[in-house]
């Protein structure tokens, strides 16, 4: 029995949600969220290792984490990072490397509409090798 198709986004969401209760994908945050919460997104990016017939062999991958809270949401962020760091996403057609921390959590900019909310942004990267059957 084969496993269901998995995208980078589906895989990162599953791993993060298993570790922290309030994890959302982009545009999935409730209108009145309970804080702190973490928004996760992941996508395959640039292609490389092209063959002579112009078929790629690898993709770079970027995971973006954004945590928001009334106070610094460092515990939420660290919990989600802990669920992803050194772990491999499951992506249909690709064999990803373990994820590496790229941008360590940074406090993001405040603007008027975010009044009172503190945000942290972090990123992880991985490389995904195309599997033979894809």
């Amino acid at each position, binding site marked *: 029995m084969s496993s269901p198709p998995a995208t980078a986004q589906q895989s990162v969401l599953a791993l993060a949600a298993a570790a922290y209760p309030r994890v959302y994908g*982009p545009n999935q945050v409730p209108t009145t969220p309970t804080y702190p919460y973490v928004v996760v997104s992941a996508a395959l*990016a640039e292609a490389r290792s092209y063959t002579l017939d112009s078929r790629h062999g690898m993709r*770079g991958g*970027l995971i*973006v984490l*954004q945590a*928001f809270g009334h106070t610094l949401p460092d515990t939420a962020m660290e919990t989600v990072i802990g669920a992803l760091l050194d772990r491999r996403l499951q992506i249909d057609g690709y064999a990803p490397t373990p994820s590496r921390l*790229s*941008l360590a959590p*940074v406090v*993001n*900019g*405040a*603007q008027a*509409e*975010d009044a009172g*909310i503190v*945000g942290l*942004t972090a*990123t992880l*990267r991985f490389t995904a090798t195309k599997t033979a059957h894809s």
Partner: protein
Amino acid sequence: MTPEQAVAYFEDITSKTPEVMLEVVTAQGVKFRNDWRDNARENYDSHARGYARDITADTFTEGETVVAQIGPEDGGGPGHQGFLGRILELGGEHSPAYLNAERALPVAVERLEKAATDRLEEML
């Protein structure tokens, strides 16, 4: 080459290395700045039109370390939008994280390492 000549040869290279690395890091810093600017230009066509111009590159030495400082000018800059850097790059609760610098960084690191290695090999 006698041992004395070998010592003199490597001492000569060592004495030239800081200046050469300053050149390499300066050139690579400008390339990273340009990539960062290109990413920013692709993302903003109206409200933050001036932001890309406010991303600058400076290089300086701190003792034996060469430092390239690349990023938006907090105080403004020619586009008067450098102060938007944090929110544009890292996002907020109601703003996406564009990560213009973060997206340009892996290529920049690879390019810097290659340029430094190539330059050192030329010196040997």
